[in-house]
């Protein structure tokens, strides 16, 4: 679908939402708007796409309640804003939209969280991506180093070939916020696997140790909870070039969620899981078993950690024997470990010993 067309369709869908509210009022009904609820109890596994997607349960926003009435009003203002923006052929960041909402009288948001969430709601309700609304995140994409060639259209509309090993500095290739086909195409790809790394420290360690060349790997820095574009980039690369993906994070409950968002889809973005998730992605570590097996320096779990682990036990995405066992083990150990705890055995230990061993088990390194 051409860009123009996508935006037009998006506006049309948005106006349908407004029309529904109007029609309610016109017929003398209390206006409502159903929004699929984005909670862990409302995600279901899609066998065909192998990702976790939103289920059927909806929350009804009704003008009968003050919160609901505010949400409906904000929805209308946001629709008006997006419509005007597309008409004017502009785009804005989510943050800019939040600031603009200051002028929306009673419809203004209390915090950017709220406006971000409403934008996501509109994605869900209209089945469009927020890029179609010309809304983009201000977050910069993550870094990539490895022997992959990316053809990226620059601002002048000219396609540029960038080799992510030879044409970049130490910080690598930076993933743009739009990684769709009209912007990013993949050229040659000479790697055996993609390794997505949670922390910058570990990313830099692998770069310094030359892990990408030695092990024929593409290194992707996730920067904590990965941005949509990073996940989309990983998914496209993995599927189009048929390269396996592994995820390497700290050994704590929050990191498992990072893995889950890459592999299964995040709850917040479950409505677009099929765009973002890479179902074949595997987890390297740090696992709770690693803490024992490698005798890693560890920290005590905090109350919040324990809570998060327990919540993961009831999270359908973690319902498999591997995760159940590991999480239970960690609850017993009451410990967590960082990726960089491997430095206990020297700076090269991670590339010389730990990763080769773990990746070997997975059959990714010979």
């Amino acid at each position, binding site marked *: 679908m051409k860009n123009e067309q996508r935006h037009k369709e998006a506006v049309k869908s948005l*106006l349908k939402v*407004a*029309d529904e*509210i*109007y029609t*309610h*009022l*016109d017929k*003398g*009904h*209390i*206006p409502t708007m159903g929004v699929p609820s984005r909670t862990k109890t409302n995600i279901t596994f899609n066998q065909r796409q192998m990702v976790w997607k939103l289920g059927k349960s909806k929350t009804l926003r009704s*003008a*009968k*309640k*003050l919160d609901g*009435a*505010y949400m*409906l*009003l904000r929805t*209308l*203002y946001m*629709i*008006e*804003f997006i*419509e*005007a*923006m597309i008409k*004017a052929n*502009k785009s*804005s960041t989510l943050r*800019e939209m939040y*600031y*603009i909402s200051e*002028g*929306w*009288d*009673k*419809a203004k948001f209390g915090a950017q969280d709220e406006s971000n969430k409403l934008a996501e709601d509109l994605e869900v309700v209209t089945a469009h991506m927020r890029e179609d609304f010309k809304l983009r995140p201000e977050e910069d994409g993550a870094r990539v180093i490895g022997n992959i060639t990316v053809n990226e259209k620059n601002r002048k509309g000219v396609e540029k070939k960038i080799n992510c090993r030879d044409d970049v500095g130490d910080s690598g290739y930076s993933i743009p916020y739009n990684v769709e086909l009209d912007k990013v195409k993949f050229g040659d790809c000479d790697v055996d696997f993609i390794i997505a790394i949670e922390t910058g420290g570990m990313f830099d360690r692998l770069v310094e140790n030359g892990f990408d060349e030695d092990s024929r790997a593409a290194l992707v820095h996730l920067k904590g909870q990965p941005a949509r574009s990073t996940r989309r980039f990983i998914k496209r690369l993995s599927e189009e070039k048929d390269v396996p993906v592994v995820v390497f994070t700290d050994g704590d409950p929050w990191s498992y969620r990072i893995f889950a968002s890459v592999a299964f889809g995040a709850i917040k973005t479950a409505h677009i899981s099929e765009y973002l998730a890479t179902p074949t992605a595997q987890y390297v570590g740090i696992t709770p078993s690693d803490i024992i097996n490698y005798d890693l320096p560890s920290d005590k779990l905090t109350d919040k950690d324990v809570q998060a682990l327990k919540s993961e036990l009831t999270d359908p995405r973690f319902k498999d024997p591997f995760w159940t066992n590991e999480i239970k083990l960690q609850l017993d150990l009451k410990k967590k470990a960082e990726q960089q705890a491997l430095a206990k055995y020297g700076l090269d230990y991670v590339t010389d010993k730990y990763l080769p061993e773990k990746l070997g088990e997975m059959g990714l390194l010979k």
Partner: protein
Amino acid sequence: MTSLGIAEELAKKHKEISVAEFFERNKHILGFDSPTKALLTAVKEGVDNALDACEEAGILPDIHVEIRKGKRNEFKVVIEDNGPGIIKKQVPHVFGRLLYGSRFHAIRQSRGQQGIGISAAVMYGQLTTGRASTIKSKTARMDTAVTMQLMIDTKKNRSEVLKEDFFVWDGKEHGVRIEMFMEGRYVRSKQSPLEYLRGTAIVNPHASITFIEPDGLKHVFERVSEKLPDPTEEIKPHPTGIELGIFMRMLKSTDKLKVRTFLQTEFESVSYRVADEILAKAKLDRTIRVKDIDLDRGRAILDAISKVRIQAPSKECLSPIGDILIRKGLRNVLDGAKPDFYSPPITREPRVYKGNPFQVEVGIVYGGQLPREHQVQVLRFANRVPLLYQQGGCAITQAVEGMDWRRYGLDQKGGRGIPHGPAVIMVHIASTKVPFTSESKEAVANIAEIIEEVQKGLRACARRLQTHLNKKVRKKKAREKFDIVQQILPMIAEKSSELVGKPVPALGPVITQIMNVIWIDDTVEYQKKRHKITLTLYNYTPTGKKLSLYAEVPANCIDDKSFSLAPTRMRSSGKIRWDLGRIKTTEKLDITFDLKGLDKRDFDECELYVSGITAANVIGAEALPGDWDIDGEEPELAEIDPEVASAVASTELDDIPVEPEEKDEDTHPIEKEKARPDMDVIPMEEKRVKPDKNTLPKEEKKAKPDKDTAPKGEKKAKPERDTLPMGDKKARPERDTIPKEEKKVRPDKDTPRIDKRKASPDKSPPPPKKQIKSTRDKPPKKHVQSKLEGLM
């Protein structure tokens, strides 16, 4: 045992034993049983006397109290007033002789009763320190003031003047100053001179009181009312409930020959007709002589008295504080705790116990910084004197304890005992003879009639508190919805119609679905010494509604001419009723009127009640309580049930936005001037004649002849009798003229009562519509555009 009985005994005894000895033996009943209490009692006796004297002389009291610490546990107590003073000759008697007083034989509401008080203080001082007291006095007629040092000759019960002098009292026209020395212990507890003076200030808002504590700390209780209590009249005993012994003694000492004359002249409220009725009921001849009455016949007469309906004693012998002044007094003293709410105080009608008229007043203060966890503080007062001791043995306390306070929003274990919560309860009993449990006048005796009256007052006042709290809670809950329909929904309508390019839809149906209540707002503004009250009724239900609205405001301050909508009924007691015509769905109705002659803080909010509609569907007013309209009219419970009627008939009609009758009403506005004389309100002249009396109940009854069937009328007659003031007799001739006027009222009843000039400018949902208009092309949109420009 009554105090009169004891006093008599005392009088007999003081001949046989020395007064000192008697005092020593009885200092507990006189309030001097501990050093702590002695200081309090001394101050109290002095201040009570000062207030009595000032009031009798018609002087606004300025009272100065000082307690100074001397050597060891010796204190100097000083009480000075600006009262009429005491003539030189009387000074030694007043202060140096027990059982010498001016009030002993008078049946009248005053603080002093026994003629013991101040001389007991002097005596206590003398016994504990051996020192004389100094009295300074000046009357207006005396050229110079007199000062006397005196002691009491305890053998003779006579005072001994040690020294006397004339002197020039700087700038003082009249008044008394007492200086006494006594053993004591100064505290600041709940039972202390400070607490006593604080209480005194509450119930005597017309007094200015300064108090200097031993450490030099000065407390000033300013005068907050320039109005002296109404002067009280001395009265004869009322026959109801009089005791046989007293009755027999009265028979013995009368100079009347016939019982009939005796009854008529020596008792309150007994006419010859009533006397005859009594004698007939007692099966005695109406010519029977006084000397022929033996104990049995006496008893028969008392029996008969209890069966004959006798008018309540005249109010003139009692001087209640009144709701507005109670409130002023409470505010003056308790405002430091920043209470949320001063429940409108209750002044009950006078009643009688054992032949003595009494009157109960109640006030409740709630919230703010009053302690939430503690027991409620009960402030007890008798004849404007705070009672600080023997709380447990007092009828007032028992009345409080015997009520279930839980339903009024206070904590109370098992529904008995002193409740807990952030409240202060004040109860005042005014009587020509307060039945104290002892001479020290610390607690009111447990008398059924009194407890009953106190509880009635407490209930009424607590209900006002409850009403206020309910209203607050319900409004808070419903406020959200109000915001939705008033603000958010109109914006949703506007924005969505803009986006889809269609006309703004009518919001009436949605608004009524969301709210489905009658919303009543009351606002009070104080301007130019007037409380401007606006009551706004929004009908946020899907159908038209008819209802009666009742408002209660302080007595005697409504400006009759200020009503934007003439009330259906109104009383000088501050009760107003409107039988409102149908308010159409999503319409509103404003009613405005003024109160005049009140200070700003005398009034915060109306009490609002409704009838003729399910109160659960009303926010901002409560269901009319059954006993609301005590002075006559019974609450009307729905002539037609508008809920039912409108649900069936008016749905379609009401939802049609154009109303044909509108025009009609515009061309026939109700003219206030015309409407007024026909209105069922108290005519101004009558008010002037009897400023304080409610003579209306009877007329009220006639106003509704169609409704009133015989048995009902009789039921109503009862309470009237009790509450009917003496003045009623005078009122009688007028009664005949009133029904005629009433007839004129009738036709008016059918004319629409909603003041359309006020009510109708906004036709369909009024506030929303206005907003919709004004928000077209408004800034936010421009804002968006300019921001976008900035983005390029």
